[in-house]
């Protein structure tokens, strides 16, 4: 994934493996929900660049309201009509934003499909799950009803449920089983890209582990591209190759998943990753860490760096100077004035910023740095 943005960076070329047409390339995507009588216009996504190769897993993290789901829906033009979309969304080089409705319908299941946030609660209660899985297959006119039903059974087996469960109604399944059905549905037309929006949120740790293992296996077997959205940086860093951290409608940090989680270069990324304690790390024992303040209201994003009102290491310029992504180490970028002023890369920038954060933050950062590094 390489953001191609207004500021040409040498790292852009470096981070793009292969160099051919990527599976997905998003350029300067913006989504604004129009003003309605009760509420002002909401610029929910404010210029996002993404790049994803087949077989690659990209995680998108960020707190509630930062625009993750809006971004996911935009990729397949599934937004409500009140949303205004601009930028380029190239799936195998073809621009989704400008394609005809007919073409879009074809792309929607077979090119890319979405496992929607909370969708496991939205299965139709009165239809057997087998019929619900067969529906997109029939819609694409690629199979007879009997063949579609057979395929539904195969898909269930692929996601670890007995084929006989095609007969079940949603209420007969547990939350984890329903989430497996949603994944089976997303796979129904052999898409090349799967977008999973919070696929494991609200599931307990063991079921979450089952689902993540399933998704990883499917991606590896079928050479799918995967975009996984979650607020749980720890889960994303464990599952994905690359990670993009969003704040207030923008990507503020991106890079190799493990590196971003272990040593975030952006102060927001750091706050987010230290919010997930490592069991056994004494620095987080009896020391939960969060981030004071509230996420910004997307209808009134602060001037300058959008994170400045909550940033523990903000400078005076942060209140006025907008920040764009800049190089923050090999294959990494972050949108922070403190990043990249020397070519020491993320590490050096990191240390310097941490030192100013005060004892509490610094101590724990130190621990996670020592345990996490060694590569």
């Amino acid at each position, binding site marked *: 994934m390489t953001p191609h943005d207004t500021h040409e960076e040498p790292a852009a070329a470096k981070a793009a493996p292969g160099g051919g047409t990527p599976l997905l390339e998003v350029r300067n995507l913006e989504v604004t929900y129009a003003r309605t009588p009760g509420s002002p216009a909401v610029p929910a996504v404010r210029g996002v660049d993404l790049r994803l190769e087949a077989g690659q897993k990209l995680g998108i993290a960020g*707190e*509630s309201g930062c625009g993750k789901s809006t971004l996911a829906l935009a990729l397949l033009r599934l937004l409500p009509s009140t949303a205004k979309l601009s930028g380029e969304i190239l799936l195998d080089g073809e621009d989704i934003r400008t394609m005809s409705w007919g073409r879009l319908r074809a792309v929607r299941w077979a090119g890319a499909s979405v496992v929607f946030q909370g969708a496991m609660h939205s299965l139709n209660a009165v239809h057997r799950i087998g019929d619900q899985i067969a529906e997109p297959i029939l819609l694409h006119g690629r199979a007879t009803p009997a063949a579609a039903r057979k395929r539904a059974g195969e898909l269930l087996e692929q996601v670890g449920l007995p084929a006989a469960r095609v007969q079940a109604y949603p209420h007969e399944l*547990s*939350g*984890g*089983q329903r989430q497996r059905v949603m994944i089976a549905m997303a796979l129904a037309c052999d898409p090349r890209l799967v977008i999973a929006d919070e696929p494991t949120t*609200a*599931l*307990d*740790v*063991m*079921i*979450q*582990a*089952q689902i993540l*293992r399933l998704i990883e296996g499917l991606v590896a077997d079928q050479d799918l591209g995967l975009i996984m959205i979650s*607020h*749980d*940086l*720890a*889960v994303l*860093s*464990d*599952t994905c190759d690359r990670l993009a951290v969003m704040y207030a409608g923008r990507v503020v940090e991106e890079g190799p998943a493990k590196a971003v989680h272990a040593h975030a270069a952006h102060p927001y990324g750091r*706050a*987010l990753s230290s*919010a*997930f*304690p*490592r*069991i*056994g790390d004494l620095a*987080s*024992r*009896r*020391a*939960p*860490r*969060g*981030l*004071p303040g*509230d*996420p910004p209201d997307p209808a009134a994003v602060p001037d300058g760096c959008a994170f400045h009102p909550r940033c523990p290491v903000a400078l005076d310029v942060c209140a006025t100077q907008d920040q764009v992504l800049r190089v923050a180490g090999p294959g990494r970028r972050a949108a922070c004035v403190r990043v990249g002023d020397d070519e020491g890369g993320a590490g050096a920038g990191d240390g310097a910023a941490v030192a100013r954060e005060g004892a509490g933050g610094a101590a724990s950062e130190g621990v996670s740095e020592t345990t996490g590094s060694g590569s």
Partner: protein
Amino acid sequence: MSGAETGAVRGGGAADRAPDGAAHGARDLGVLAPDGAGDGAPPLLSAEQVKVVFPGRRGDREARAVDGVDLDVRPGEIVALVGESGCGKTTLARSLLGLVTPTSGRVTFDGKPLEYASRALKAYRRRAQLVLQDPSGSLNPRHTVYEAVAEGLRIHGYAGDEQEAVAGALSRAGLRPPERFFLRHPHELSGGQRQRVVIAGALVLEPELIVADEPVASLDASVRGEILALLLRLRDELGLSALIVTHDLGLAWNIADRVAVMYLGRIVETGEVEQVLTAPRHPYTRALLSVLPESETEPVILTGEPPDPSRVPSGCRFHARCPVLASGEAERAGVADACRTRELPVLPGSGPAAVACHWAEAVERAAG
């Protein structure tokens, strides 16, 4: 493995005694906890052999949601109750607050058994409060923050200065200055602020204990830490005791003194957080820890669905899913038969770390 370490063996005492069923002696050992919260003090809240059985609907079998639990919360102590979905955490928590009457066993508070007459329960609610997570609808969308927090005072006919009490509770919950929040409605607050209002509502009656059911499950990571820090501060400053129900082991590491791991209606491992979470002895606890993203051990993903309390297996209730039994390790330790047929005793509600597992017990005994 970890079970052979000195700390764990000492803690293993309770398990060694387990087969003869006289595990209660463990309470008298008075082993010191490193942080000393409420140590040695008699428990404030105590479950004794509590069972909650729900009758089966339409010919279904009855569900043994809580199936024999001892659990203590001492003054000023934070205890985390963890376990997978459906294992009985919420049912146990509700029985501790008198919201569900145990089918057998009893709950005591401050040394006295709970009384279930409505007056007695009302008096109890002043001292022990339930904190639910907000999205489950604990805030009325039409009520202002002030009304939401004052509600408890009104129910209990509070005689003091209501406004002062509400303001005090809001500031203790971190909503400052409190007056700024009085007239707001839930939709005008962020998720973290709403959860603080719920906590303020619980604090306003100055309870000695709170039971929080998944207090941060729906909150953003960044906000989660702030709410947990608040709970920790309330303990340090007001001596508040807490039982925190969660399936998040990281939360236990963040704020709890002790942890009790529940599986299918029973506590299967309990002890100091450091000990249980860094040197787990029960195969179930080990599996739970192994699947966390940051875990360095090979993930042990238990297959199958969360267990069904209307079909509690014989012997060890975990045996059908137990990786130690499946791999033959239990056989090699000579306990495979026991795993399948011999029930394990109820673990003590406090005291040194304890585990309900034939294998852990045999291995630790062999290690000396």
